[in-house]
């Protein structure tokens, strides 16, 4: 019996030792990723943090797809291409207000907050980075620019929205709606700070990052939307003379095609002298799009859906009759902006005879200009001059702000705060571009100058996702009453409803 007790004691001690040894093995950590504590220690890592924000910007939720739909469907320059236009897009186009479950709107909401959270992470980690202070500060400037861009999308489309300035760390860190004025203050403070931290330009592997001038241009745009034209003018004047209009209007939207069927590849005109800020895309040549939408996945496609969505095969979107009829007779920009049936495509920037595109080639509804009803599609960002493919997501960089836009914003500021003649001078710079070469305008009154700005913005920037913001600004200023111009979207709500994806998960918003 004693022997047994000894054995039992021995066995028990052995078990105890084994259990203590096992306790240690319970401390398993993730072996596949760095941790919050070990990463974002160097300026290079912080720069990766800001790269991730750009990656959201070009994702399917934003500029890669739903962002251009949101603006174009709410603006007045598009019409439905036919039954193929999916319901949420058609809803934005035709209804005064979308339902709270509208997926286009919800994706833009998600995408902008993805950018904001990532920007907040970079800004929170920056003070701990000391190895390369100049690079750190530039990265901070970029993060603030991108955060401001995202908040401007939110405040201009939704009004009062939740405002986060630090990364959310608790599952209950809910924020309710912040008054729009406070969000404008944050945007202006971010952009002002960014102008002091960002360089005037970039080269090589940094092309595409936000510059000091991009921050000023954005600041001007934001001030205008807020109604402060004097502050807007001050900011926009920073760019005056620092950029030039490219001689060929088409160079803003063409060329970047990588497809086995197009050889040799055409010369693109990305990052040109007119571009203030553009979102970069890349055509891998594999006809793929990042359907995951979030911009995550370092080997995922980095293409934009615009040429496919607005093209002749999917044909979701066509130019509206209103924009077609806005063009003056003989304005060469009409042919630079639209393709009509009967036009020649596959001309490779005019170097070849190409082929005539027939109505049968075009899976779109017809539109009417000057009494002529035929099929038309947008030519801006179209690849039809090189490729007639059934499916081809594009590599064109999307211009967010180009110098012509800046000049016309300056014109609007001058019309509001200065003289019609000063406004006309900016408008006429745009009209005098060599390939455009339209006669100058000479408005006599403030209202005439405003009308001239409204016309010029339409024909210069048609289909460039600025019209929606313009309409909101002009409607608020009462132009659609005072100028005798019809509201292009009468009855449309000023602000979108907060998506139900947010209201159903955020108890701070009711």
């Amino acid at each position: 019996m004693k022997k047994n007790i000894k054995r039992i004691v021995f066995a028990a001690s052995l078990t105890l030792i084994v259990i203590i040894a096992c306790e240690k093995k319970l401390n398993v950590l993730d072996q596949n990723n760095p941790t919050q504590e070990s990463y974002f220690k160097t300026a290079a890592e912080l720069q990766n943090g800001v790269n991730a924000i750009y990656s959201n910007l070009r994702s399917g939720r934003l500029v890669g797809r739903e962002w251009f739909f949101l603006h174009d469907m709410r603006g007045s320059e598009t019409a439905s291409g036919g039954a193929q236009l999916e319901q949420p897009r058609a809803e934005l186009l035709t209804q005064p207000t979308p339902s709270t479950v509208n997926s286009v709107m919800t994706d833009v909401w998600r995408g902008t907050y993805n950018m904001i959270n990532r920007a907040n992470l970079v800004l929170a980690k920056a003070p701990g980075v000391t190895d390369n202070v100049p690079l750190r500060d530039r990265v901070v400037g970029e993060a603030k620019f991108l955060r401001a861009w995202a908040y401007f999308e939110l405040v201009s489309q939704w009004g009062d929205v939740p405002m986060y300035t630090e990364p959310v760390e608790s599952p209950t860190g809910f924020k309710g709606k912040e008054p729009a004025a406070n969000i404008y203050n944050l945007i202006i403070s971010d952009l002002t700070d960014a102008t002091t931290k960002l360089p005037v330009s970039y080269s090589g592997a940094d092309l595409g990052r936000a510059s000091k001038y991009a921050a000023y241009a954005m600041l001007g745009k934001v001030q205008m939307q807020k109604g402060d034209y004097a502050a807007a003018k001050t900011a926009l004047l920073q760019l005056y003379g620092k950029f030039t209009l490219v001689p060929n209007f088409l160079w803003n939207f063409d060329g970047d095609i990588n497809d086995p069927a197009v050889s040799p590849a055409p010369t693109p005109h990305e990052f040109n002298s007119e571009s203030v800020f553009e979102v970069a895309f890349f055509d891998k040549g594999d006809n793929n799009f990042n359907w995951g939408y979030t911009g995550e996945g370092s080997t995922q496609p980095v293409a934009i859906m615009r040429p496919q969505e607005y093209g002749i095969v999917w044909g979701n979107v066509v130019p509206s009759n209103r924009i077609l009829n806005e063009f003056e007779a003989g304005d060469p920009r009409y042919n630079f902006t639209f393709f009509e049936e009967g036009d020649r495509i596959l001309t490779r920037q005019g170097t070849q005879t190409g082929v005539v595109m027939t109505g049968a080639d075009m899976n779109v509804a017809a539109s009417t200009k000057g009494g002529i009803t035929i099929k038309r599609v947008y030519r801006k960002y179209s690849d039809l001059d090189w490729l007639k493919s059934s499916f081809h997501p594009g590599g064109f960089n999307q211009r967010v702000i180009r110098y012509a836009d800046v000049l016309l914003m300056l014109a609007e500021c001058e019309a509001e705060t200065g003289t019609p003649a000063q406004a006309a001078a900016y408008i006429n710079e745009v009209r005098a571009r060599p390939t455009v070469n339209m006669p100058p305008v000479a408005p006599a009154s403030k209202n005439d100058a405003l009308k001239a700005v409204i016309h010029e913005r339409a024909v210069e920037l048609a289909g460039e996702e600025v019209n929606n913001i313009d309409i909101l600004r002009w409607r608020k200023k009462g132009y659609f009453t005072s100028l005798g111009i019809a509201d292009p979207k009468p009855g449309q709500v000023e602000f979108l409803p907060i998506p139900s994806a947010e209201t159903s998960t955020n108890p701070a918003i009711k």
Partner: protein
Amino acid sequence: MSKQSDQFSKVLCFAFLLFISSSVLAQNRVTGKVINQADNQPIVGATVQEKGTTNATQTINDGTFAINVPGNAILVITVVGYSAQEVPVNGRTNISLSLQSASGALTEVVVIGYGTQTRKNITSAISSIDNKTLNEVPASNFAQALQGRMAGVSVVNNGTPGSQPIVRIRGISSITFSSDPLYIVDGIPTGDISSFDMRDFESVDVLKDASASAIYGSRATNGVIVITTKKGKRDGKLHVGLNSYYGVQRVTERLDLLDREGFMKYAVAYRGSQVPRLLSPWVNTPIYNGTTQTYGQTNTNWQDEYFRDGPMTQTNIDLSGGNQVSRFSTSVGYTDQQGTAPGVAFRRYNFKLSSEHNISKVFTFGETVFASNSIQKGDANSGGTRSNLVNVIRMMPHMPVYDPTTNGGYRGVDATLDGGDPTNPIEDAELKNPTKNTTAKLLANAFLDINFTSWLKFKSSVGIDYANGLFYRFQPIFNDSGKINGSSATQATITNNRNLSTVLLFTQQATFDKRFDAHHVTATAVFETQQQKQKTENGRGNQPTNSLRVLNNALNQSVSTTTGENFLVSLLGRVNYDYKGKYLVSGGIRRDGLSVWAPGKKWGNFPSASIGWKVDQEDFMKNQNLFSGVKLRAGWGITGINGVLLGNTPWLVNVSANSSSYPYNNLNPGGLGSSINKLGNKELEWETTEQYNVGLDLGLFENKLTLTADYFHRQTDNLILNVTTPPSFGYIDPTVIENVGSLENYGLEFVLGYNGQAGDFRWNASANASFIKNNVLKLAEGIPNIEAGGDAADFGNYNVTNTKPGEPIQYFYGFIVDGIFQTAAEVANSPKQVAATAPGDLKFRDISGPNGKPDGIIDDKDRTKLGSYLPKVSYGFNLSGDYKNFDLGMFFQGVQGNSIYNDTRVITEGMIRFFNAGTQVLNAWTPTNINTNIPRAVLGDPNGNARTSTRFLENGSYLRLKNISLGYTIPSASLTSWTKGTVSGFRVYVSGQNLLTFTDYSGYDPEVGNRTGSSLTNGIDWAIYPQPKAVQVGIQVNFQ
């Protein structure tokens, strides 16, 4: 002499010593005979065991046995179908005895986890199924054979051949994570049960309540299915069995879809114009060069093209035998099941070997090895939003399936000419989306039993569960001359993903079993560790040709590997006590430490207790004949959910380094991006479920009639929930794992059985039914409800289910339809829907508004509870009988009182976008066709008539003849004489599955699986693979 042979001699010495030590104890050779008390016929295959040891033998053909035991030993004689009997040897050398037949299941031995118990002494809710019943249903996956067999165990078939059915024991216990039960094969926990051949299973015991399952502690909430595999008999003979069948499966259900004529009418009604392909000149153009058949002459029935007969066959050969020293069982099996749709199939090769050796009276060694290789051919699109069946519905009848002039041989649509962009479902399945999942699995264990004394045993075992999975997909270069996304590929894409998992299990177990007069105590103590290591290797790349199907020198190669591990350490103890076999008490506790949880939260305790009272053993029950068995049971226990389901470090915040990119300077990948994509949670800990169970087991008329009834209540607290955080938090993965919420399931289960005999006709009937209710009690702070199941692009606006406290999980949630607007005045005078609402649109009911009252506006506040996918009752009944050499079995299974949200009808009649559709669309509302329930056909469905509403909600009740089989057994006398004794049994049978289904449901199959795998999207029919009907012919042969 070499060193090796030196060691060999040491081992020999040791073995010799063992032999001596075991033989010094005085042994008597006892012989005898076991007969049936009723008819004095010998009983074959009865186990004669020396009590408290593993020393045992079995009776042979004439019922005789021989065993060496000490003179003071007690022999225990057990055999299925008879009451066990204990006989003290008392120095005798010849013992004959008769056993009393105990028809009914009250005498069988039940595996209770880390031990066994006779059914009559069980105090918890355990259902069992034996090998014979399993083999009645020719199914490739054993879970299919469980369907409807047990009260409280729900099995829903899901997906393509080789896919795991959805098995739920006593309802859903978790919202975010799969409620799959834990499977234990010969003591080793394993996840993937589809690798096993159920013909190797001797018995399956399902531990349903916590007092039974809590012995598996943290992983037991969803129930435990304990599988015991076949072992050899100790009758000194070789047994060879052959089991084989061949059959065909077929999907006979068809939806009413438009043919070409109907499609043409619908095109004009919906689009306002005919599709160009059906106008001149296309309508008269041949469908491809080299044929005379035009589009106008083509009328493809896409359902008939898609569904095809799927042959299935399965063969298993097993060989077993044994004697007093050793026994073994080995088998090989082959399963091949072709799908009823193109591209899907399942094939499996099985091998099994187990043996057991009584080294001495003290030591017994045994091992079991399973090896299998399964190949599941799948369709990468079968679970997608636009599944192949969605495309079968949408594909235009004027389009051909095949086109020999294209690269690849199939034909796709041109959205401009054909009016829409469905993809060719047959091309998708056969050319573009085939996948192959190959899993090599090795599951093995070895154990050593040490019998210190007749009442104290020790068992040490080691187990390994190794799985090597390879997912391979080849997407070729092709061009189907269509003009939509996916009409062509200019590069071939190869995906090669490997997944390795190794689980090592060490178990040390001591068992005490002793009688003290009328007291009987059994105690078990276990120490166990389980470690899993995983590795994944994902490779992908392109090839410029279809002839290279590997990644050698591929373009755009990308490779990613990850590694992970988890560790579980457990201590457990259990004591069973019975007094005079009347009063039964059992109690246990398990303490688990799991690496998955946050630091400081790693340990959890899982206690259980149960009591039983065998009323029939009381004196006052002695003088009656009505009740042959009466037992009352009650149990309680706490269990957990398998934390490994959450991943290895679910609480940890990680940086996704270099996981995104931006093409600066138009270079790819340009700059790499790093960020944090998900919130973490350092408070994360065990989810626990507390369960009560009371039960009654009754046997009447000498157990001819048996009844088991159970009531249970289980409440899950600390419910682990993947809480969706607001999009404004900005995380790419907007979920965080939290312990929030609580949930209850409660219900009643009944099992009734009857055995009857009239002359040569013997029959039995059994029925089971369960009534289970589910209730969500609490959700995360700040989360009033959770919606799920929305898919606006294809299935209409709004989510389909909602989960909130006070209601059952994921009830169907949407609008109520109050008919169709007939006039503009009616639209104007009704609550406002949308600006575009017009006559012919559905009128939705105004239920609520911002103030909780109807507000004259139809918006998302007007959604309400529409129904539940949970049946009020699930039932099964089995009728079987045999007459002379014929046997007949029929098994019905059904559910009653549930709803199905038939989202497939959004595709057939929702008219969201233009495609081919169901014939219902021709009955759409028009000013001249007002007596209809189909709303107007209008571009883009501006009113949202296809939104989630009562329109698509259907009654999901069904009764199904799950299996019917008729067999004939050749009489053994003739068989023996014909085959000169080599064949001892021969049965041939035909059987059929799903041959009859009674239901009002209008879709393909009321047995609706779950496309997303989430616990919140059950009962939504998104047009997925239906259950086929099947017929088989099979043989069962025994050689001796």
